[in-house]
């Protein structure tokens, strides 16, 4: 057919719908050519399959797309299944090699400075109890080794010595002391594992271990709360959280609690017999959340009792020291997701549960039978909190010997409006007894790094030979032995690019 373009004047011809045109076979030969014409038009008509049938009028182009075949989706996971998967803690990897000659953490090894830098296993019977207090967190890399173990670093051994002193034999001078520590440090510096080590040591020494594995749970507005009658300003109790705490405490400390008998009078608890153990007492709480807080208070007074109430002396035993471990302290310094009746946010210090644990930090013998308070900050999922920052800076300054009256003593910036209650927590202690300490965890030393990486090699995760130079390199790359980074590097090495071997000797 004719071209749609006039090639002589390069204008576009209006196309005639083919349906209107007569079939090409019957086009008469006109002798006088019209103005626009082509030779093609007058050439012999090309053969067509069905020349008589007019071709169908052209239809618009339609985007034809294959419809997506609906794939049969697997059923969505059941309620709570994904969370369970996320929170799952795997403590053993059967593919990893067993490390020969690895010692267990025990009352002897935890103070043995010769073992510094070596990895010691957590005692297997202790694992269930550690799980009960939620000492393990999902992303700490427990699942790459045959069995859980921790490196004995300087801080660990120092802590071991403290445990030994506090629980000391007979009339040791340090016996019954209270150590109050706030543990800070960079991300991955091992704060939570430090708490884990403390808990293990507490179990080994038959202490009572009470933990708050995640401080955020109490302030995120995920458990029930109710105001305490007649408190001013209004305080709130969280029955379910207390009940969970009691459950944790009983599961982990059953051995200790079941041997101790009730020694005080608890008029608020009717179901209590004079012969019942502390375990029975705690169980009252997690059977009925409504009285959980009363039960906890009763348990707390029992554990802190130094002598029995009159008339109940017959089966009184000395109470063991206590370890209180809290992780994620910063959450307790802010306003919570809870609202009071006037729809104002409730400050964490108004939660009676939180207030109880924070008041232990204040000066004085807060644990009557001695023990340790370890409150760790966290760097993951952490609210930024200026007041806490100032408080910790002040604490660090005091520890460095700067007097609170001196000019160098850190003060909150003008108009920054820090929370007075938070700053009050970190005020200098008035008594001489047991001041609050700040412990900042840094990186591992070089020899500790070496021991840690050798453990990776022994477990079959590393193919390299662990030598001084290689360890030094990893130490630098991990920002000075930050243990979390070292653990990443230890796993990473299998795929990491290796530096090309080059003639260093020649260069020297």
């Amino acid at each position, binding site marked *: 057919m004719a071209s749609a373009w006039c090639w002589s004047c390069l204008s576009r011809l209006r196309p005639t719908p083919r349906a209107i045109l007569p079939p090409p076979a019957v086009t008469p030969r006109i002798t006088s050519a019209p103005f626009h014409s082509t030779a093609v038009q007058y050439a012999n008509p090309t053969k067509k399959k069905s020349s008589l049938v007019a071709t169908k009028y052209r239809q618009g182009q339609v985007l034809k797309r294959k419809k997506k075949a609906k794939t049969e989706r697997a059923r969505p996971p059941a*309620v709570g299944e994904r969370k369970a998967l996320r929170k799952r803690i795997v403590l053993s990897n059967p593919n990893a090699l067993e490390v020969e000659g690895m010692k267990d953490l025990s009352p002897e090894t935890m103070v043995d400075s010769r073992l510094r830098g070596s990895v010691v296993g957590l005692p297997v019977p202790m694992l269930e109890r550690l799980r009960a207090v939620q000492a393990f967190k999902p992303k700490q890399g427990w699942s790459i080794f045959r069995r859980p173990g921790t490196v004995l670093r300087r801080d660990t051994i120092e802590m071991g010595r403290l445990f030994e002193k506090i629980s000391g034999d007979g009339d040791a001078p340090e016996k019954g002391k209270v150590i109050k520590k706030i543990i800070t440090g960079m991300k991955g510096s091992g704060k939570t594992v430090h708490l884990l080590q403390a808990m293990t040591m507490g179990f080994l020494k038959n202490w009572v271990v009470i933990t708050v594995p995640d401080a955020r749970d109490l302030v995120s507005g995920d458990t*029930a709360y109710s105001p305490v009658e007649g408190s001013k300003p209004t305080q*709130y109790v969280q029955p379910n959280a207390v009940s969970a705490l009691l459950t944790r405490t009983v599961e982990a400390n059953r051995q200790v609690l079941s041997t101790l008998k009730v020694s005080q009078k608890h008029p608020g608890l009717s179901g209590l017999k004079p012969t019942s153990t502390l375990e029975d007492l705690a169980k009252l709480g997690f059977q009925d959340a409504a009285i959980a807080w009363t039960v906890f208070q009763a348990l707390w007074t029992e554990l802190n009792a130094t002598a029995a109430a009159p008339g109940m002396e017959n089966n009184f035993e000395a109470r063991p020291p206590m370890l209180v471990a809290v992780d994620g302290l910063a959450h307790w310094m802010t306003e919570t997701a809870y*609202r*009071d009746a006037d729809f104002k946010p409730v400050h964490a210090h108004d939660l009676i549960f939180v207030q109880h644990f924070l008041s232990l930090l204040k000066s004085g013998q807060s644990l009557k039978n001695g023990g340790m308070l370890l409150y760790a900050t966290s760097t993951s999922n952490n609210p930024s909190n200026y007041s806490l920052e100032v408080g910790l800076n002040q604490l660090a300054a005091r520890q460095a010997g700067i007097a609170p009256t001196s000019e160098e003593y850190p003060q909150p910036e003008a108009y920054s409006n820090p929370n007075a209650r938070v700053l009050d927590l970190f005020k200098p202690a008035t008594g001489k007894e047991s001041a609050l300490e700040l412990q900042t965890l840094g990186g591992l030393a070089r020899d500790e790094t070496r021991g840690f990486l050798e453990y990776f090699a022994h477990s079959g995760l590393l193919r390299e030979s662990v030598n001084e130079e290689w360890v030094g390199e990893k130490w630098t790359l991990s920002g000075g032995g930050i243990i979390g980074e070292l653990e990443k590097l230890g796993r990473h090495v299998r795929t990491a690019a290796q530096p090309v071997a080059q003639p260093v000797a020649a260069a020297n």
Partner: protein
Amino acid sequence: MVFILGVNFPERNLLKKSLETFFGVGNNTSSRLLARFNIHPTCRVGELANKQVLDLTAVLSDMKIENDLRREVLNDIKRLKETGTYRGRRHALGLPVRGQRTRTQIKTPVRLNRMERRL
């Protein structure tokens, strides 16, 4: 199933979202309701104590929600129409009332604004 203001709610549903199913209760009102009775924001319907259910029901029944609120709104529109205001006319014509453009995107008024308005 828990009965709040004559409606049955499954126990696993979030209380806050359940309250918001009532016409006239939104995010703000429901959060304030929860705060008033010291119920935590992620509470499920099943976790409510009996007293709390009664309290909630009592408060909700005092509030102007559901049909009362609908009636009030319809009355307001009716008043606008009867007084012959511009806004009333727009309601009747099925056009946007508050000065929006009408060149495009007036699906919602076309759907909702009519002589016999329904809510």
